[in-house]
C-alpha cells in the first residue's frame, strides 16, 4: 500500500461452479461469481449458509469438491494457504486469532515478515511497516501492549492490520464489524474505504446491513450453500427471495419507517421560507 497501484480493470477473482461437500452435506453447491479488481463485494446470507466455507475455499483452507477458483486467470484451488497468501490474497478470521503473548506491533510485524513481500524485508523494515499499518488502523496508541489486553473493537482492528501486513491485492474480511456499536462501525467503514481506495479489492462478510449497503459495489447472497441473488445493493435488498431467506420482516418494516422519516424531513426542508436559506 506504500505506492498505491492504480486498480487494474477486469476480473481479479473468479469463483466458478464451486461445490464443497462435508460428509453427506453440501455446504456449497454450484456457486459462481466474479470479483472485479478494486471493487467491494458484500457477501451475505443466514448463518450456516456457507459464507465462511467459501472464504475458506478462496483462501485455500479447503479444496473445493467441485468447480474452481481462479485468481488473475490462475487456478488456486490446489494451492496451499501460505502460497495463496503470497499470491496476494489475505483474510481475517471471524474469531480473531492474534498471537496473544506478542505485542500488538509484533503481531503485525509477523505478517510483514512472512507475508507476500516478507522475504524481501528486513526485521527492521517489517517493524517499520507494522508501525505504519498500526497508524492506519488506529492502533499506534497500543502498539506495545500485549494483544490479549485489547478491547473487542481494537482486536478487530488488529485482525485487519495483520491481514494488511501481508500486502494483499484482495482482502477477505469475515465479520470484522460484529460487536461494534454504531460509532465504531462508522470508523471501521472509513478504514475499509481507505484500504479500498489504496487499490485493495475487498470481499466483506457481514450481518450489519447498514454497513454492507454503504460499502459494497455488488452484493452476493448465499442461502443453504447456493447463490440466490447477485447485484447492486438496491436490487438485491428488494428481492423477495432475499427478504425471506435473510433480511426478515422486521428489517423491511424498519426500512419503511426510515423512508417515511426521510420523506418527512424532505417535506420540512421544502416548506422552509426562502429567507431561511439566507
Amino acid at each position, binding site marked *: 500500500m506504500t505506492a498505491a497501484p492504480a486498480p487494474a480493470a477486469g476480473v481479479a477473482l473468479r469463483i466458478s461452479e464451486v461445490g464443497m461437500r462435508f460428509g453427506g452435506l453440501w455446504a456449497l453447491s454450484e456457486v459462481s461469481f466474479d470479483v472485479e479488481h478494486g471493487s467491494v463485494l458484500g457477501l*451475505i*446470507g*443466514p*448463518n*450456516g*449458509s456457507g459464507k465462511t466455507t467459501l472464504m475458506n475455499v478462496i483462501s485455500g483452507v479447503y479444496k473445493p469438491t467441485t468447480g474452481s477458483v481462479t485468481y488473475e486467470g490462475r487456478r488456486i484451488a490446489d494451492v496451499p494457504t501460505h502460497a495463496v497468501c503470497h499470491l496476494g490474497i489475505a483474510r481475517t478470521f*471471524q474469531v480473531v486469532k492474534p498471537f496473544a503473548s506478542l505485542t500488538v506491533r509484533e503481531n503485525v510485524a509477523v505478517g510483514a515478515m512472512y507475508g507476500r513481500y516478507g522475504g524481501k524485508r528486513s526485521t527492521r523494515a517489517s517493524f517499520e511497516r507494522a508501525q505504519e499499518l498500526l497508524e492506519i488502523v488506529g492502533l499506534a496508541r497500543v502498539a506495545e501492549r500485549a494483544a490479549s489486553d485489547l*478491547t*473487542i*473493537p481494537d482486536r478487530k482492528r488488529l485482525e485487519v492490520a495483520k491481514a494488511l501486513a501481508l500486502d494483499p491485492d484482495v482482502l477477505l474480511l469475515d*465479520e470484522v464489524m*460484529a*460487536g*461494534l*456499536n*454504531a*460509532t*465504531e*462501525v*462508522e470508523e471501521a467503514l472509513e478504514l475499509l474505504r481507505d484500504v479500498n481506495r489504496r487499490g485493495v479489492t475487498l470481499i466483506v462478510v457481514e*450481518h450489519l*446491513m*447498514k454497513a454492507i449497503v454503504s460499502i459494497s459495489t455488488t452484493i452476493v447472497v448465499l442461502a443453504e450453500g447456493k447463490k440466490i441473488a447477485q447485484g447492486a445493493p438496491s436490487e438485491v435488498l428488494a428481492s423477495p427471495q432475499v427478504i*425471506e*431467506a*435473510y*433480511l*426478515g*420482516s*422486521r*428489517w423491511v418494516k*424498519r426500512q419503511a419507517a*426510515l423512508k417515511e422519516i426521510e420523506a418527512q424531513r424532505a417535506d420540512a426542508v421544502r416548506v422552509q421560507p426562502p429567507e431561511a436559506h439566507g
Partner: protein
Amino acid sequence: MTVGAMQPAVATGALVIDALSAGYGDTQVLWDISMTVDPGEVVALIGSNGAGKSSLLGAVSGVVSTWGGSVRYGERALTGFEPDRIVRAGVLQVPQGRRLFGSLTVEENLRMGAYLRNDREVDADLERMLKLLPRLRERYGYLAGRLSGGEQQQVAIARALMARPQVLLIDEMSLGLAPVLVDQLVELLAQIHATGVSILIVEQDVQTALEVSSRAYVLETGRITLSGPSEQLLDDPQVKKAYLGV
C-alpha cells in the same frame, strides 16, 4: 412455537440492583449502579463496548466480584453468592459468545442446563424445548461446536431455560446473526416472556433492544447515565446519535 409448549417459571419478585460497584483486581469498572427488573418485565441495558455491560451481568451472576452495594431477587440477597447459588435462586445468564460445550452434543448441552435440578421433569422439559425449537430436534445428536451461529444461540437459550430460571440475563443475543435469525430469537424472547420470566438483555443492536423491552438503562464508562421507557429512548436525540447512527 407455542407458549403452551414451555413450562412456565414465573418470576415471583423483582431483581433489584442497588448502588452496586464492582471491578477486577485494582480496577473499578462499575460505579453506583441502581436498577430494577420488575417481575415479568423485559428490560434492556445498552452502552458502548467497554462500558461495563457484561461486567454488570457478571456481577449479578456472581462471576465478577462486587465491591459494594447489593443485588436482591425478591426477598433474597444475592450479593457475594457463588454463581451456582444464584442459579438456584432462579437468576441465570446466557453468556456472550454462547459458551456452549462444543464437544458435547446438543442433548448433552441441554442436560447440562438442568445440572442443578433434582426433580423428575427434566426429560419432559427437554421435550418441551424441542417442541419450542424444532431445529434443535434435527440437530439433537450433533456436536454443539459444529452448529451454525443461529443454532448455537438457540442451544444457549434452551440450555438456560432447562434450569427453569425466573430471571434470564441475556448478553449480546444477536451478535453475528443474520437479521432473519434475530427475528426468530425476538419471537422466542416473546414466548419466554409470555410465560412470566423476567428478562434483562444486553445488546449492541440497540434498535432491537429498545423494540423488545419496555424500559432501558444506558451505561457509559461504568455508570448509568440515562434510563426510561424504551419508546422514549428510541426518540432520544442523544441515544439516536450515539447508538442508532441516525
